């Protein structure tokens, strides 16, 4: 029994048990634990971006308030519904694999892949619109925005720092930062007296990196589910062995979950 044959010998005995596991249950639990740990690394990968979002939104709320209006809430909501449906078909597919209902499993996997494709299609429509309008990240941002009707005189009183160490002795500037709203006051661009806030590209940098990374994960999920579909058609899964479908399902639910956070954070700011 050579290294590579180690597993094929076990498979020849009708099972999927690798030679270094004692029982199928031990192997299943190992696979599941491994997948959960992998999902933890995925959450941390997105965590960096959520952290960047939090930093920029708290330091420049006016950018987020202003720029999020350029996102299409309807399309975002439809996409959310599409992904939630795909999670439902995925969960159903796992159940069918456990029950050994092959035909239903294949159909449900196909439905999940189709819904994922639908999500990407709608995403494409949104991206194309942004591309045409020049609502892009960092260097590429070149949108034409409405300009202020009249110059604004902002309050010269600055907001004191929360950190007592950092209170400055330098006299406050005559004009406050452009577009920054005081607490409880409507942002200047909403009253029609101020122009758009500076650095709008920051919002679109955050938007494109977050939805872009999520999109890559959707594509990876589609590839994974296609592999599952092909294996399911060959009848590899049944009540005795359904681990791969189960694990692919876990991954797909995470992809869905990330979007469920992205949608309100990016589209529903106000």
């Amino acid at each position, binding site marked *: 029994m*050579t*290294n590579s044959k180690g*597993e094929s010998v076990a498979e020849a005995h009708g099972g999927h048990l690798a030679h*270094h596991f004692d029982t199928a249950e031990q192997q299943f639990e*190992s696979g599941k634990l*491994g997948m959960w740990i992998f999902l933890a690394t995925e959450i941390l990968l997105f*965590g960096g971006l959520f952290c960047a979002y939090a930093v920029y939104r708290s330091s420049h709320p006016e*950018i987020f308030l202003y720029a999020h209006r350029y996102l299409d809430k309807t399309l975002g909501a439809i996409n959310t519904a599409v992904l939630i449906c795909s999670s439902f078909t995925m969960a159903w597919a796992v159940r069918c694999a456990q029950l050994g209902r092959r035909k239903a499993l294949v159909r449900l996997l196909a439905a999940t892949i189709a819904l994922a494709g639908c999500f990407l299609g709608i995403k494409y429509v949104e991206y194309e619109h942004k591309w045409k309008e020049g609502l892009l990240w960092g*260097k590429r941002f070149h949108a034409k925005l409405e300009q202020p009707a009249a110059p604004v005189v902002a309050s010269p009183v600055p907001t004191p720092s929360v950190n007592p160490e950092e209170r400055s002795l330098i006299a406050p500037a005559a004009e406050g930062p452009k577009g920054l709203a005081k607490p409880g006051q409507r942002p200047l661009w909403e009253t029609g007296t101020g122009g758009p806030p500076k650095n709008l590209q920051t919002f679109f940098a955050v938007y494109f*990196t977050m939805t872009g990374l999520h999109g890559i994960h959707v594509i990876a999920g589609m590839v994974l589910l296609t592999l599952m579909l092909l294996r399911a058609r060959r009848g590899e899964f049944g009540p005795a062995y359904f681990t791969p479908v189960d694990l692919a399902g876990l991954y797909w639910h995470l992809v869905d979950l990330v979007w469920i956070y992205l949608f309100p954070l990016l589209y529903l700011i106000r």
Partner: protein
Amino acid sequence: MATNDPVFGAGGLGAGQNALGGDNYLSHGHGLKSWLLTLDHKRIGVMYLVSILASFFLGGIFALLIRTKLLTPGSSALMDANTYNQMFTLHGAVMIFLFIIPGIPAALGNFVLPLMLGAKDVAFPRLNLASYYMWVAGALLALLSIATGAVDTGWTFYTPYSTTTNASVITMVAGVFVLGFSSIFTGLNFVVSIHKLRPEGMSWFRMPLFLWGLYGTAIIQIMATPVLGITLLLLIAERALGVGIFDPSLGGDPILFQHFFWFYSHPAVYIMILPAMGVISELVSVFSRKHIFGYTFIALSSIAIAVISFLVWGHHMFVAGQSNLASMIFSALTFMVAIPSAVKVFNWVATMYKGSIWLATPMLYVLSFLFLFGIGGLTGLFLGALAVDVHLHDTYFVVAHFHYVMFGGTVIAFLGGLHYWWPKMFGRMYSELWGRVGALLVFVGFNTTFFTQFVMGSHGAPRRSYHYLPEFQTYHQLSTIGSYLLGMGFLVIAVNLVHALFRGRPAPANPWGGATLEWRTSSPPPHDNFAATPVAGDPYDVEAWAFDRQLGGFVPRAGGSGS
């Protein structure tokens, strides 16, 4: 136990303990393909070992070139300023990402972990091989970047310099990104193996401490590496697309890069040191011929270090414009890491107390570790103190501290572990005399190189500078001489170990009298690790093993429990 033990079974003494002539994992398959496509954790461990030692050699050459350049204060001989920047960047990047992070876990850990668990393999053998090839791919990308315009940013890739320099940052950063995946896969494999493959009789608190060290390491690899991943992706996006997240002229924040980077890279130094501490825990008990002292404390301190390591990253940014309040909190948390580290050191020293210390080569490395890690750890407290750090920041003091922990700690423990497990890996003993000479040369060479840098740094000598003031010349020259001694030490070690592969005395199954499970199988182990699954007992019951003069190794003591 004498009846059920496959290697030490009744009447089996002396025979069958060295498997070089018979079936073992090295002779199990032939040809290049049987190595390149292997799923055997032992072979993957050996491939990792060869690869990381090659990286270590490369990184070492860079270091010697830097030290040679620094012999004279104002000279431009040997390399120009730009090459010098590339040299120290590559020394750092190669040593950290290619050698020291995978060093103990992926090379030694891969070989030893399943054996210590009495298992046939790690939980996911294919993922293990994938992790190795990820490493190879990452290393190739790094080499490619050296060929196409070596990075000169320092190994930290700080923005905005890294987004504006014309070196091939993208290739290097992509390489490090791929290496991160390799590291995550190894960690994931180890966590699942430790959870699911422990044998009967091995509860969490009867596990060898090396496994606790690897477990703590794996937690950090899993939880911190993805954050480095996204940071590097953003850096690539910044350079390739101008995404602007770290670019102040586009409303971005370069300090955010530092936060992201150190959120990984501070825990990463514990990825480097925790497995080393695990190795020391094994060695100190075996070579003091005494049960480990304070087992539970050593085990839990590994986890404590892993947890606290996530909360201290801000101490790299005391002078980077962080708020004073944040700096104070980070400073306090930094001091807290010293507690579990000191718990370990005190327990190791207490293990040696009244033991019968055997000054074999691995034990010499343990003693080196205790001295050097002690100095390295305590100078870390100087740097964690806010006011002192303002003076010492970016001086040679930081360089010396880092090398005392990473070299004096991790590399020394790696060498100790390498000498300890070498007979198990390849079935041959090395020359004890030359092993000791090598250890001594490394100890003396290391201290000459880096202690002078502490002195120099406390006088304010800035790190990473091409020219320096003439008053620092004596220190620099001493340091360079030390680095040559260090190089000679490594030469002795390499010749000794390689010589052992061909001419060494065949190793017995248990040359050192260790009580962990890897010593219950032949040297080198068979393909399936154990002829029969061993029963786990107390991993530190070293007194149950007695030296057999005729065999040249240890056998279970007659009448002792031995299991």
